[in-house]
């Protein structure tokens, strides 16, 4: 059992609260990704689990044991740092074996564990090299190897792919996913990249300003965001938000004569200010639809198979719509956008999602 259970965790630096009442359970063998904008406290949370940051209050349990006051080495965790943090004066073998040597592991066992990790990570030909003789991707693998040999209960990854170039990042992402399957390890992974979060996670924890905004399976967060922040953070390009007023039942006014008649959640009161959210990929062009907005295309970004049209509405707001294939649309053209009613999210004034 290597479950991580965090209850009411708070951390402050003087008067500044970095983590506020965090509750989080990482089930045995699951891959949990902490994601959020920079400064949201996700790295601090990870470092608190690792024991590199003392916490102000609350408890951290790893494998059923409270570890609040244990030093990192006794928490049975292994951390992979963003900068890899390989020991520059030691070769690959020694980098991986270093911690084991200090734990007085027998030499034969060290050998066996290191060579197994090297085999899994295809590092066998590099064992005698120094970190400076390795490429970025190889260093990354050594850093992961150093974590594997310790046979920890929990792996902690702190933005491990940020220092890799785009192509290598995608490769390594797949490698990490495979590794998770192979080792059946419990992993807590920090990233600011929502694509990494979506592709790797069993469970995503979206954080903002020291709080957990929402926890859930990747597609749950995508289809059923709990609030405007999660809706805007998950998905790329980001969801469109249009401010509106509920003019009458099931009727939104956006200003400058732009209106929509659509089914609204029952909790919407007449006169309430709300925000309509719709993802670019849920908008269609041209089709006559029940829920439709007209606008003029400012610019189209074409990525090949798909493109993104920035459409200016008469009230001055711009919404981004996905263009599939090569339809007959061009800059400056007036278009009709069809919104699918199942994919429309309505957020109240405080940002929470209003549901029927």
């Amino acid at each position, binding site marked *: 059992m290597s479950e991580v259970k965090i209850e009411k965790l708070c951390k402050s630096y003087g008067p500044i609260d970095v983590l506020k009442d965090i509750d989080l359970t990482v089930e045995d063998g699951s891959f949990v990704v902490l994601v959020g904008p920079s400064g949201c406290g996700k790295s601090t949370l990870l470092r608190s689990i690792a*024991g590199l940051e003392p916490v102000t209050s609350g408890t951290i349990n790893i494998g059923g044991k409270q570890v609040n006051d244990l030093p990192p080495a006794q928490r049975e965790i292994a951390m992979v*740092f963003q900068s890899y943090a390989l020991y520059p004066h030691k070769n690959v073998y020694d980098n991986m074996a270093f911690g084991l040597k200090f734990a007085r592991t027998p030499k034969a066992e060290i050998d066996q564990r290191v060579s197994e990790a090297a085999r899994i990570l295809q590092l066998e030909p590099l064992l005698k090299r120094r*970190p400076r003789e390795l490429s970025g991707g190889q260093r990354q693998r050594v850093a992961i190897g150093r974590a594997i040999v310790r046979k920890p209960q929990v792996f902690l990854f702190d933005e491990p792919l940020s220092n890799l170039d785009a192509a290598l990042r995608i490769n390594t992402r797949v490698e990490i996913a495979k590794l998770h399957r192979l080792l059946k390890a419990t992993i807590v992974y920090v990233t600011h990249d929502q694509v990494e979060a979506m592709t790797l996670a069993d469970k995503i924890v979206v954080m903002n300003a020291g709080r957990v905004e929402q926890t859930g399976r990747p597609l749950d967060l995508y289809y059923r965001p709990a609030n405007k922040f999660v809706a805007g953070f998950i998905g790329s390009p980001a969801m469109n938000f249009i401010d509106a007023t509920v003019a009458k039942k099931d009727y939104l006014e956006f200003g400058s004569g732009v209106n929509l008649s659509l089914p609204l959640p029952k909790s919407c009161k007449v006169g309430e200010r709300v925000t309509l959210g719709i993802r670019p990929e849920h908008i269609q062009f041209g089709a006559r639809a029940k829920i439709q907005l007209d606008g003029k295309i400012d610019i189209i970004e074409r990525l090949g198979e798909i493109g993104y049209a920035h459409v200016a509405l008469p009230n001055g707001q711009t919404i981004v719509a996905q263009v599939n294939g090569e339809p007959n649309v061009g800059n400056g053209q007036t278009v009709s956008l069809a919104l699918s009613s199942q994919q429309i999210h309505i957020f109240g004034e405080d940002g929470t999602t209003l549901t029927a």
Partner: protein
Amino acid sequence: MNVRKHASAFAVHAVLLAYTALALAPIILVIMNSFKERKAIFGSPLKPPSPSTFSLIGYDKVFGDSSIASYYINSITVTGGTIFFTLLFGSMAAWALAEYKFRWNTLLAIFLSIGIMVPIRLGSVALIQLIAQLNLINTLTALILVYVAQNIPLAVFILSEFIGQIPKDLREAARCDGLSEYNIFFHIILPLLRPAMATVAVFTMIPVWNDLWFPLLLAPAGGKQTITLGIQQFLGQYITDWNSVLSALSTAIIPVLILYVIFSRQLIRGLTSGAVK
């Protein structure tokens, strides 16, 4: 453009060569004259030794004198001891000041930096009293203690700058690997500090080896003289044995030169490259 580039390179080298000549001339003069007869030293001090003026009499006397050998050993002991303890305590203090947050951290750092600004010789009288009370007059321990105290402030200053450059992640990775704070220091920090320590060693070594002041005050007799002090026995009030003085000075260069070569080999930059991106 090319001509101007060459001209400026030439000017730079001319200045450097002139400076080198200025710095080396006295040393060359000493070495040259140490191989000459006494008469030739006075007669034509600027001429290199010729077959008629060549003589090893100075070296014969220096190597024949058993006390000179022990002065060498004293100097080497004092210099080596000073380097060792300065580096050990200096790096430990620098590590503590750079890595740990504790109450008197800043105050201690300022206190140590005062040591760089105030010359230790101002405290000579107090130091003599202290060393006398400790019964350490005429011992090498007294010299080593004073020199370590003299050199630690600068060592801490230089080394803490270097420690600041060692990525924080490395120390934390070591903590996750289960190393104690002492092991982090000895197995991670010290190996990475080698270039900085070599710098400090060179800065420490040369003034200590050449110092005449503290040997004269704290260990002037009892066979505990250092070589710089020991050479003084050849300088008399009425007659000075220049052959021996020059030969002893020439040989005194050798140990410090060897130490310098050893340390300067450590001054390799970029040892940390590859640790973190």
